[in-house]
């Protein structure tokens, strides 16, 4: 008899334990999510409050009279160092730097991955190994040598300017940052694309060769159109990294009109004109974070898919 009843009792007991487990797991997850989202919440709420409300109210309270003024002020009026024209100029600086840096590094990564997998040459593995190694070089160790190189490029730019009337962008801080980020990013973008193309059927390349397509025609017509997932992954990764970079930005474009958003944001917060305008600072920080947020929202679903595609064959 007991042999018959025991499994039933176990089953019902198992159900209870299972439900309890679920409650604990989801409870903890909710707690962590809350903890993680708290700063974002405070930022968002504060950016819509007036200074009075901030000074007299609760930090976590919702704004009583939501106002867009801090956002407008951050965008167009707040002081960055000595100039008080808002952060909009610096926002565009970042865009002007990030877009070419992301596109160039992604295209070079794709080209590298294509060559390293479909046009194998003697020592291809070694080259790839060295490129992988580039992913592990710490930022700090690059700072000084890169400063020297950029200095030389700048002087060469001046020489060019004198000789031809144009410096071809050499010595321009934005161009310098694009250069630095492209060089530093190639390791990662190559890694992404190589792993993706490793699983890419080589027969397609052979078929295109028989069809008479050239090296670049195969790349443009066959490889790239079938690389959407990894392309998105690489763009998100590079965009986030380059947009958020502070170290290179402050080292090579830390002053003047061409400083990127991250440096400008730091200066907004550090510029004191009497009272600290928390709402404006928070709004500026939100504006600085928006583009990366937007990229994730628009292309996020490809992100996981692309990461998987690179990792698992097929």
């Amino acid at each position, binding site marked *: 008899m007991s042999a018959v009843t025991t499994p039933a009792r176990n089953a019902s007991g198992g159900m209870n334990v299972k439900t309890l487990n679920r409650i604990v797991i989801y409870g903890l997850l909710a707690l962590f999510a809350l903890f993680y989202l708290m700063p974002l919440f405070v930022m968002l709420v504060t950016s819509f409050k007036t200074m009075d409300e901030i000074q007299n109210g609760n930090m976590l309270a919702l704004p009583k009279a939501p106002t867009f003024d801090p956002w407008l002020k951050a965008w167009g009026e707040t002081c960055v160092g000595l100039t008080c024209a808002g952060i909009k100029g610096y926002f565009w600086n970042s865009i002007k730097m990030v877009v070419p840096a992301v596109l160039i590094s992604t295209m070079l990564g794709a080209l590298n991955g294509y060559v390293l997998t479909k046009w194998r040459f003697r020592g291809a593995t070694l080259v790839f190994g060295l490129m992988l190694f580039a992913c592990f070089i710490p930022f700090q160790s690059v700072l000084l040598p890169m400063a020297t190189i950029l200095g030389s490029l700048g002087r060469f730019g001046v020489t060019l300017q004198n000789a031809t009337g144009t410096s071809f962008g050499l010595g321009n801080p934005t161009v310098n940052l694009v250069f630095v980020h492209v060089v530093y990013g190639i390791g990662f973008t190559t890694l992404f694309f190589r792993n993706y193309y490793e699983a890419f059927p080589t027969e*397609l390349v*052979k*078929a295109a*060769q*028989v*069809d*008479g*397509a050239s090296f670049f025609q195969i790349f443009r017509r*066959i490889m790239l159109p*079938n690389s959407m997932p990894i392309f998105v992954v690489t763009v998100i990764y590079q965009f986030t990294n380059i947009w958020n970079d502070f170290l290179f930005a402050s080292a090579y474009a830390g002053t003047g009109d061409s400083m990127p958003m991250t440096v400008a944001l730091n200066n907004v917060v550090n510029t004191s004109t009497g009272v600290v305008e928390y709402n404006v600072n928070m709004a500026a920080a939100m504006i600085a974070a928006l583009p990366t947020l937007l990229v994730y929202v628009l292309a996020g679903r490809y992100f996981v898919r692309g990461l998987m595609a690179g990792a698992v064959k097929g």
Partner: protein
Amino acid sequence: MAFLEIDGLRKRFGQVEILKGIDVELEKGGFLVLVGPSGCGKSTLLNTIAGLETITSGEIRVDGRTINDLHPSKRDIAMVFQSYALYPNMTVAGNISFGMEMRGVPAAERQKAIDKVAKVLQIGHLLQRKPSQLSGGQRQRVAMGRALVRDPKLFLFDEPLSNLDAKLRVDMRIEIKRLHATTGTTIVYVTHDQIEAMTLATKIAVMRDGEVQQFGTPAEIYNNPTNLFVADFMGSPAMNLIPATIGTSGNALSVVLQREAREPINLPMANAPAGLSAFQGKPIIFGVRPEALTDPEGAERNASHIATADCHIEVVEPAGSDTFAVTNLGGRGVVARLRADANIQPGTSTPLAFNLTKAVFFDPATETRIR
């Protein structure tokens, strides 16, 4: 002069020699099948003809022109790949016309060529679909369409049917044969399936370890294998290769087959191959195909030389169209092919007719044919 000529072709990857001097030729409109177990170099050979692999030495000529160092697109060839290799981002029409587009053929002309090929292969209704929306057989057709549309001198097929299920494979095999018959194109075809080789080819090259073991018509390969490997590889069910010795019966040579717990079978031979007399009293391999080992009533009537012997039947396999019986000779299971309605019971003894005109003999030491 043959249409496709391959002379002393060698291919080396580092220290490993993949192709060890291949000599093959094919007449215009012929169908050459390269067959062999995996790793024998047949796909590499095809890739060298296509120009997708370089060659170490030797010469490949098509229509009298040496194409050794030409780019694949300049060789006037078309290739059908094992995985079909359809471009996933293009429609069927785009796939078929990509090659023409690369060669700068005007759009109107491309459209005309697409329509023509679509009609031949009956894929007109699929032209605007993407490859992912097609079934296996349809993809196969599109892959062939992409090759056909170029109207090349030479078609190369790299195991085109191996990804299809059994029934579709038979259908497509017939379709390829029909296509070859109607268009009269010259085809080189790689497969590991010896039935595909037998049914499609006008010439077969059986390959092993980078060497051509035998090159000839399907009938030559089937009836006159030059060595043990070819005899064993071609034919299904495989040829019975029975260890035996050569004895005498009267003043003729005879084949002596050992049996379990019984006296050996002694099959006298009326016209043994000349080389066999040197093997008197020595071991040989006696090769007889299942259809040449049958019940006496089902034996070929006009075969000049048939010897009959009692055999102990171990297993009977009725296969519908035939009945296969397994007996044990020389320590091996030996398959005999009987009529479907042959009255035969496992565990009994039955007379079997050996058609000795179809029998072949091999030297066990060198594995070559004794002629």
